[in-house]
């Protein structure tokens, strides 16, 4: 089949093509291209500012239980009080009917929780969408039975962060989540086991940037810490170690090297590990 078709000829009968909303052959009537976009001029008048220029609503999103395809009954000032009351009743019924099942209701709750988590952790929008999708798959795989909704919301965010290489520690998520750490872990284990999440070990380098800004160390120290991580990976030091602990160890080592004031306790605290963990990793790292 030829890739480029002549605009003027019909592919069946070589007749004349006519372009409008759809391109069709004027001889045999074959529809060559469908284009729902109206490319004609805009006939509506906007000169008095009152008309809304929009033709469409917001794009579809997986981050809403109805994918953003909701209907709302609006309000108007110039209605009789009788009609206004009727609309208020309709609105109430509509709001009740909007969520049809218990699963739907749970999804609404979990999605707002995910949204809250994502905003307070300062994560990008794409993480939110993916976390919502993950939650939905967990729900359809019937993983939620007997486990907490809040835990699953937090675990979805945790899992998506991990797969998107912007890892957060369990502690960081549990701090802002409504779920306890145990709930989060139980939910994450279930997700990982049943859905086969594509997660490997966390790269300690993912933590460096955040810890560095929390510890307020200079850029040079941060860059050196990244080198330490690479070195540690080559020497196999990260195997079997807590990645966040190793990340903060590298920062600590880089800070010591640059004579930057940083105590083991401070460094250990941002990663949620004990100074002992940091110390043993540190000695392994600097030992040549």
């Amino acid at each position, binding site marked *: 089949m030829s890739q480029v078709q002549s605009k003027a000829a019909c592919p069946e009968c070589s007749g004349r093509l006519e372009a409008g909303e759809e391109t069709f052959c004027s001889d045999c009537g074959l529809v060559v291209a469908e284009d729902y976009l109206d490319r004609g001029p805009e006939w509506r008048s906007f000169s008095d500012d009152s008309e809304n220029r929009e033709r469409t609503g917001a794009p579809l999103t997986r981050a809403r239980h109805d994918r953003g395809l909701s209907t709302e009954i609006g309000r108007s000032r110039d209605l009789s009080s009788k009609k206004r009351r009727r609309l208020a009743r309709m609105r109430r019924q509509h709001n009740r009917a909007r969520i049809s099942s218990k699963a739907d209701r749970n999804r609404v709750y979990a999605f707002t929780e995910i*949204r809250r988590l994502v905003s307070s952790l300062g994560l990008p929008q794409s993480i939110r969408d993916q976390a919502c999708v993950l939650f939905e798959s967990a729900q359809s795989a019937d993983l939620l039975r007997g486990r907490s909704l809040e835990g699953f919301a937090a675990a979805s965010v945790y899992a998506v962060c991990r797969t998107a290489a912007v890892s957060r520690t369990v502690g960081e998520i549990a701090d*802002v989540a409504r779920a306890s750490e145990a709930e989060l872990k139980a939910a994450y284990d279930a997700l990982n086991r049943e859905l086969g999440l594509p997660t490997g070990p966390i790269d300690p380098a993912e933590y460096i940037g955040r810890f560095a*800004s929390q510890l307020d160390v200079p850029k040079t120290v941060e860059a050196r810490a990244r080198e330490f991580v690479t070195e540690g990976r080559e020497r196999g030091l990260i195997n079997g170690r807590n990645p966040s602990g190793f990340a903060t160890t590298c920062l600590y080592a880089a800070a010591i090297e640059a004579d930057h004031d940083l105590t083991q306790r401070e460094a250990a605290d941002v990663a949620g590990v004990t100074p002992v963990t940091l110390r043993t990793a540190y000695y392994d790292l600097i030992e040549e």
Partner: protein
Amino acid sequence: MNRADRREVSRQYFSKERLAEHHFRSFNAFLDYGMQEVVTEKETIDTDIGDKEGQEPVWVELGDVRVVTPRVREADGSEELLYPQEARLRNITYSAPVFMEMTIVRGGEEEEEHVVDTAETKIGRMPVMVGSRKCNIAGFSDEELVEIGEDPADPGGYFIVNGSERVLMTSEDLAPNKILAEYDSRYGDEIQVAKTFSQRRGYRALVLCERNREGLLEVSFPSVSGSINFVTIVRALGLESDEEIVHRVSDDPEVVKFMLENLEAADVQSEAEAIQTLGERVASGQGRQYQLKRANYVIDRYLLPHLHEEGIDDEDVRINKAYYLCRMAEACFELALNRRQPDDKDHYANKRLKVSGDLMRDLFRTALNKLARDVKYQLERANMRNRRLSVNTVVRSDVLTERLEHPIATGNWVGGRSGVSQLVDRTDFMGVLSHLRRLRSPLSRSQPHFEARDLHATQWGRICPSETPEGPNCGLVKNFAQAMELSQNVGDEQELKRELSSMGVEGIADIEGVAHRTADD
């Protein structure tokens, strides 16, 4: 003064970044105390928890609000200072985190009130004006500015939202809280109307007092459909006797004559009767008890709200409202008797300019209300699911952020106004300066409004007489005169009143304990 001298004076005048000075002053005032005032007005977030039997009520107390300087948070969680040029190049928003102290309190019914959790939490991000006090480049020398990629000659005074520079158009509104007398026509007859846009805390209520064709006074205000007899409403406000009403309106014999006609036509004689009549109007078909409650609520909430003051009982303000209505009545009668001319709406004394800080304040107020609604919802959900209530887990910071950024990005302000924020005109340097010093009248450009477009004598020294666009916006879009100085809001009204009374301004006689009202505001 010859030309060289004048040039020297101008040069001196503009040597210290005075071009966008009005934007800076206004926005800095908003950051310094405007935001805190909005939060203090809000005071608490109440929840429905505790409505059920055997449950203790829960509410949130709002404390100090604090803005830091703009910073950016990367996907990996690291946070660093953001400079305007980086925001422009990366198409991100030049905004600073806002923190607020919040305290969740439970109890009050059977248990004692106790604090469940208290914390300062991040409630969202506030777009920051380039060059304002909270801007990261504030106080930088020219060399430092060049170092971070900033133009030392750039006047600032705009916001950066999603990488585009947006300036908030100064808008020229009719002065609130002032009596304006004018003629109107009803079914072909000329009538006299006294108008007041009463404004307090972002709530704006138009109160009308009109003298109808029979010479009777009628008052109308929001939440009451149609109008109410003047005598009824002042009696409801506690000004009962005929003599007092007449005396409060005017001592002029001809006005007294008009007033007596009104009193004769009055159908209520006492305060209680008047409130009842009002109740029948605002809650017709409801129970008597409810009607009284509703009437009192309407009086305290919707009638002349600007007369209310912090720390003064609603009951005490009522008599002030009655006096204010009497002054409006006087204005109507004087107009009818040709004792005065109708007020000139285009006179610059009757105009107020809303600069970026005032606009941001309106925005912040609605954003905070939205946040409060969300916190209420989150608290109720968390409580229903038996979760521990903590400040950190009930605040969704993107709610406030979105409400603040979206209007600046699109220009669709709260209250349905559009085109409030505009893309900074970077055609050339003069274009930027002119754009920052531009102001817009909210009047529709599709209607003639000849008087509003005309150059008014009071614009002398304030508005440039020649710089205005041609076409439909002619005379509605104006520009500041070169050396115009914009006086800003009085921060503390109580202070102003004390100052005025120390200078010998007397309050209304025979009401003691009630704070003195200034002449106009």
